[in-house]
C-alpha cells in the first residue's frame, strides 16, 4: 500500500512542477503550511471571481504535496472558480469516502493515499491553499 502511493503518475506529476513560480501581478497570495511536517506552499492567483487567468505556486514539501500543487498548477489556468471548488470537493470525497473523481479524473492518482490517514494533509495542503485563495478572490 505504501509502495502504491508512489506510482508513476504521482512521481511524474510532482516532477513536472506545473505552475511552479510566481505571478507578476497576483490578485491574491496565500500561504499555507502543514505544522506536522513543516511543508509549505505559497499560491498566487490572477483572474476574476468567475474565472482564473493564471496561477503560480512555490511549494516545499513531499511528493504528495508537490504532485497536488502541480496538478492544480496544470488545471487552474482558464478554469472557472466553480470548477476548482468542485475539484476540491471531489478530492475530499475521494480521500474520505473513496468516491471516484469525475471532473478531474487525474485525482485518481491519489486513491492509494486514502488508506494512509497521516498523509491526507499532504495532498490537501495545496487544495486548502487554493480554497482560501478562491475565497479571497471572491471577496468572502
Amino acid at each position, binding site marked *: *500500500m*505504501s509502495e502504491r502511493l508512489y506510482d508513476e503518475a504521482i512521481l511524474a506529476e510532482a516532477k513536472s512542477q506545473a505552475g511552479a513560480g510566481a505571478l507578476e501581478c497576483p490578485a491574491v497570495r496565500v500561504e499555507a503550511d502543514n*505544522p*506536522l511536517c513543516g511543508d509549505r506552499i505559497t499560491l498566487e492567483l490572477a483572474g476574476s471571481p468567475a474565472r482564473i487567468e493564471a496561477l503560480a505556486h512555490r511549494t516545499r514539501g513531499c511528493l504528495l504535496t508537490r504532485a497536488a500543487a502541480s496538478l492544480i498548477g496544470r488545471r487552474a489556468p482558464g478554469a472557472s472558480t466553480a470548477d476548482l471548488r468542485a475539484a476540491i470537493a471531489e478530492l475530499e470525497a475521494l480521500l474520505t469516502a473513496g468516491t471516484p473523481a469525475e471532473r478531474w479524473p487525474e485525482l485518481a492518482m491519489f486513491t492509494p493515499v486514502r488508506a*494512509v*490517514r*497521516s498523509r491526507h494533509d499532504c495532498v490537501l495542503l495545496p487544495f486548502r491553499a487554493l480554497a482560501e485563495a478562491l475565497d479571497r478572490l471572491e471577496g468572502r
Partner: protein
Amino acid sequence: MSPSELRAEFPIFAARPRPFHYLDSAATGQICRAAAQALLGFEAAARANVKRGVYRLADEATQAFDRARAEIAAYLGVRDAREVILTSGTTFGLNLLAHGLVGRLAPGDEILLSTLEHHSNIVPWQLAAGRVGAVIRAIPVTAEGRLDLDRLDEVLSRRTRIVSVTHVSNVTGAVSDIGRIVEAARAVGARVVVDGAQRVPHGPLDVEALGCDAYALSGHKLFAATGAGALWIRRDLAEELPPFLGGGEMIRRVSFAGTSFAAPPHRFEAGTPPIGPAIALGAAAAWLAGLDWQALAEAEAALTARLLAGLAAIPAVRVVGPTGTQGRLGVVSFAVDDVHPHDLCQLLDSRGLCLRGGHHCAQPLHDALGLEATTRASLALYNDASDIDALLEGLEWAIRRLA
C-alpha cells in the same frame, strides 16, 4: 443481555475466587472485555506512537486513537469529536480547566464550588485561585446530602466567573440539577464546569443539552483502563483557553524566540498520550453505548432500593444521603454506631465483600455531616441482588462482632 451474560463481559468475575461481591465501583469500575482486548491488542500487538508517523503501524495507531475520541464523543453526545480532549483522568481534566479558566480572573472574582465536591474538584481551584487572588465559595448541602439549590442565590454573585460542580456525588449518590445551575450561572455570565466522574458509568448522556461548558471523566470508572480519561470543552471556550502542559504535539512551531500552539484538542494533549488506555476507553464507550440503559437504570434503582430498605432495617446504621431512589444513583454511604468504617470494611472482606471506608476524598462534606468517615457501597451494571443480600447479611454479622 441477562445479568449473568453482562457479568461475563467483565473478566475479573471469572478470575477471582468466590465469594466476590465488588461494591466499590465508585472508586474504580472493573474493566469490560471490550476495553481489555483493545488495551492489550494495542499495547502488545499494534503499538506505535501517534500523530506523526507515516508507516502503517503508526498510521493505524493514530486512526485508532482518533476513533477512540469519536467513540467517547458519541457516548457523551458531543457532535464534533474535536471538542474531546484525551487526558489521564478527571483530576487532570479539572486541573487543566482550573489552570486555564482561573488564570484570567481578577482578584476578588469568585469561583463557586459545592460542599459535596470530591477533592479533585476543590483543590485545583484552590491552588489556582491562590495565584490570582480569586475567592472560592461553596453551594451548601441539604441534610439529605444534596446540593441546596434553594440557597444558590446566597453564594452566586455578579462576581461569580466559574461554577464547578459534580454531576453525581461520590458519597451520597445525589444527582445534581445541572440545568438549574447552568441557568443561574448564565444569568451572571459564569462558565459552568461539571465533574462527570460518577455520572458516566451509569449510561450515555447529552452534555450539549446539559448546557455546561466542560465535562470531565475518568476511563477507569467507565470500565476501561486506568491511565486515561476525557475532557469535553465547548468549542468557543476551548479556543480561548491557553495551553496547560507544554511538550510535543501541542505546538505549532517551537523556537527559543517564541512558540506558537496547535488548535484544540491537540493544544491540550502535550506529550505522548496514554494511547492504549485511551483506545480502551473508546472501546468501553462504544460497547456501553449499545446496552439497554433503560433496563439497566431500572435494575440499578431496584438494587438501590433493596439496599436502602435493608439498611433502614438495621438500627445501628444511618444512611448519609437521599433515602429514596429519586434523583440519586447507586452510591450509598452510611455510618454505623460505634463501628469504625475500616474495621467494618476489613471484616466484610472476609466474606468477599469489597467496600470502601473513609472520607472518600470528600472531607468538606464529611465535616458538614459531622462525621470523620463513612462506609460506602457503590453499584455498577454488573451487580445483582446476591451482592446486596450478601452485604446486608454481612453487615448484621459484622456489627454483632464489632459493636
